[in-house]
């Protein structure tokens, strides 16, 4: 387990000088414990303390960087609600060197098109895995060259033949590809190849025991830029292996498994393959190699990845868009509240009880309640007027009335001026909505 803030605090100089940007040493220690600060910002930390903290706070899973800004590993939890998952799974599309040149250029074209814009976010595929299946070292080198020329994305060069791998890697070393795979049979050659070119390397063995042995042997070559492959190629086995690897690395601090893990899909039917990929994205695979490169298949997988890797340490919020309760029409009353879910649902519940179809617009207040948001300047008339325009309420209702919470009656004048709506000050408590709604004509 990582050190707690108090344990780190004991090692700090306790000067409370604020030079690290936070007011006290304890605050700095807590930021260190949660990985939000770096020890380097403290100018007074002693060498002894630095050593103690560096080794104790070493991440349970090493961060491995390769290619075009791909970062894998560096995770701390088994469940995202415990803290968060940090580095979204790197998705790679598999390209075999046994494809013809025409097939290859078609595939590259398809990969290039894998960019999506959705709900204001941009999704893209991270890289291409060039797989040596032709048996011909020259072909592997050539295909790797073509792929590298055809895309800016991160590369994975996959061959168990050290000679072919070296031929493909050397011209592309500046792209810093991930290479593989080092097995019991070839690990010395391949790990040394990775070491010479300063690129990360996949260590592959059949099963966890064999993987442990091989990692220990490979580490003896004085190189540690590893990605693990436990060799399983069925979803059930892979799920089990991924879980064991993550759990041992984090819960037991089992150092040989303190590296990110790569998984390969095995299903040939694309829909099944995406299901399989979804399991790996959910369960700790740091990189997944996929066969399909069709947009329709990959969009849901990338959406899932995006959802899983959002930070759950955010207040509970509802979407700040216009909500309607019941069968709304052009005469429906229009309520304003905040997007804090406790606040929103108490309003929605009462509006529902009133049996009058109504619109409710939760203002984006970062998930804070009405009075909290008002206190922090997040429920200002300017912002509300803007949100009213943005939600298009003026086209949805005939009337020009907006109902605001009674506790913020003070904003009514300004809001009326800015929005052009008549501002009706509603009850202070949502429990008053029922009787209040009866007064609305």
């Amino acid at each position, binding site marked *: 387990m990582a050190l*707690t*803030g*108090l344990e780190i*605090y*004991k090692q700090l100089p306790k000067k*409370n000088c604020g030079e690290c940007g936070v*007011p*006290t040493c*304890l*605050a700095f220690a*807590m930021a260190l414990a949660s990985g939000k600060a770096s020890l380097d910002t403290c100018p007074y930390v002693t060498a002894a303390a630095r050593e103690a903290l560096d080794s104790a706070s070493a991440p349970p899973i090493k961060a491995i960087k390769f290619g075009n800004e791909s970062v894998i590993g560096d995770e701390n939890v088994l469940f995202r609600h415990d803290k968060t998952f940090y580095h979204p799974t790197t998705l790679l599309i598999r390209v075999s060197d046994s494809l013809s040149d025409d097939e290859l250029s078609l595939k590259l074209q398809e990969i290039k098109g894998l960019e999506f814009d959705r709900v204001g976010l941009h999704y893209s595929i991270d890289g291409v895995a060039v797989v040596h299946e032709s048996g011909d070292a020259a072909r592997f080198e050539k295909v790797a060259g073509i792929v590298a020329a055809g895309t800016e994305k991160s590369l994975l060069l996959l061959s168990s033949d050290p000679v072919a791998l070296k031929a493909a890697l050397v011209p592309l070393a500046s792209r810093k590809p991930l290479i593989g795979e080092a097995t019991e049979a070839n690990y010395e050659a391949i790990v040394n190849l990775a070491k010479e070119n300063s690129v990360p390397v996949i260590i592959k063995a059949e099963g966890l025991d064999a993987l442990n042995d091989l990692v220990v042997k490979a580490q003896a070559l004085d190189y540690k830029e590893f990605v693990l492959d436990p060799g399983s190629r069925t979803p059930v086995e892979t799920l089990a292996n991924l879980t064991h690897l993550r759990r041992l690395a984090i819960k037991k601090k089992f150092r040989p498994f303190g590296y990110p893990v790569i998984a390969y899909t095995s299903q040939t039917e694309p829909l099944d393959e995406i299901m399989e990929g979804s399991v790996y994205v959910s369960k700790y695979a740091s990189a997944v190699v996929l066969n399909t490169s069709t947009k329709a298949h990959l969009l849901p997988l990338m959406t899932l990845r995006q959802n899983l890797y959002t930070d*759950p*340490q*955010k*207040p*509970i919020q509802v979407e700040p868009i216009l909500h309607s309760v019941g069968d709304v029409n052009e005469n429906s009353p229009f309520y304003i509240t905040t997007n804090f879910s*406790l606040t929103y649902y108490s309003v929605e519940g009462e509006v529902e009880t009133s049996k009058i179809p109504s619109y409710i617009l939760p203002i984006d207040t970062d*998930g*804070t309640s009405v009075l*909290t948001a*008002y*206190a*922090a*300047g*997040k429920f200002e008339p300017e912002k509300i007027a803007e949100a009213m325009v943005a939600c298009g309420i003026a086209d949805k209702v005939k009337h020009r009335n907006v109902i605001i919470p009674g506790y913020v009656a*003070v904003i009514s004048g300004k809001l009326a001026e800015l929005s052009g709506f008549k501002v009706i000050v509603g*009850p202070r*408590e949502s*429990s*008053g909505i*029922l*009787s209040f709604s009866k007064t609305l004509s």
Partner: protein
Amino acid sequence: ERFGHHPLATKLRISLSVPTLTENTSDWARLNMELRRVLKAEDKPIHIPLSVLKHLPESLRKANWDVSVTLTEIDSGFTVTRVEPGNDHPPYGLAIDIGTTTVVVYLINLLTGEIEEQQGSYNKQAKYGDDVISRIVYAVENEEHLLGIQHAVVDTINELIDKIIARKSISNLDISSAIVAGNTTMTQLFLGVDPRYIRLEPYIPTMTSVPSVPAREIGLHMIPEALVHCYPSVASYVGGDIVAGTLVTDLANGEDIILFIDIGTNGEIVLGNQDWLVTCACSAGPSFEGGGITFGMRAMPGAIERVIIDSETLDVSLKVINNLPPVGICGSGLVDCMAKLLGAGIIDRAGNFQLAHHSGSERIRATPDDKEFVLAWAHQSGGKKDVVITENDVKNVIRAKGAIYAGIRSLLNMVAVDIEMISRIVIAGGFGNYLNVHDSVQIGLLPDLDTDRFEFIGNSSVKGARLALLSQNAWREAEELGRKMTYVELSVGATFMDEYVSALFLPHTDLSLFPSCQ
């Protein structure tokens, strides 16, 4: 006391030799030399402000070279604040607590340390808003507003000072120092410092450590050159009043972990020991002080402070402060009332009224807006109307107690300390004087620990001001505390929100935290 007696201001009777043609050093050099000898000041400088210097020649000669000199002492040296004909009045100091709602001033005899007089009244800033937020909103509209709101609190304090000196038959020129403790907003408004960014994310106060200023700059009725010291703040919502309270509780001087809670609107909490201190403000809201509750009021005559409900007949018996007909309910009454409503099955653990189970009783009834329980009928009450507690009131109290308990849990989480490791829970706030620990635990306001670990200290803010007034060491420790306390921002991360939601239940959704309630 543990800090020793070494006040921030002193008064010395000095007899100077009369200048002659052969002993012709200047007035100030003559006084300075004698002060240095008496004070054993060594290499500490002694300053004299121009305003005092201007009157020095006449003061010395009128007094026939026998004068009383008042000095302020701070780390960097001494400052002469007044020279007057020799007298033996003791020097006085003021301990001032600027609360958002009430202001309290103690007159302290700096020789004996005794509280010689005390006065309190409502903060006149109330006309600009009941809470700190609305006052900030008002104050930042323009320069005039800021000045107006500053004057309001200075006037409040001056009226209290005038009352005190009238009763004691002393002069305001006998008052030689003052220490002010207040929350961060109160401190900034008292000094006329722009409070705009206190309430805006990321919630940054202008300063935490406050320079000492001469009274004339603020206009306090005391020696114009005497220094007014403000307690340092920690962050926007943990201010000097809490630092003062922390000093009083002696939190930072032992190995035992102590929890200090100010049960008030801001709900500040401090946790720690000699090695570390963390603090947060959990915004409990004003319900324990009577705000936001239909018949809520401060703990004063006519306030219900104890409630007993017969769970069979739902008959009610009340204890009212000064045994008057009840007009409302104060914080301790509310806590009691919640526990009893729950005990009698009138509300469920979520605070919902159980109308159906009690359809036979007249006391429990539904109005168009809400459901309510009648505590006192109109004919028994002081206000000639039914005194009730509504479902909304109950929910408000649940939110307030939920916030405080969630704040405690969040701080404990933050430093990975188990609740059982807390050896003492110190409760401050006017409300704290009346709180029933058993009831508080029953509703989940306070953690379920042995009653003997709880302690009430009342207004710790003014007590802290007095401590610092009487001791250089205490003042230094106060300044050190301000730097040492670590503010935890509860709006960052999900911990507080999860804890808060879990605490919106009587006593809690996790009953294992409240073994005595099972």
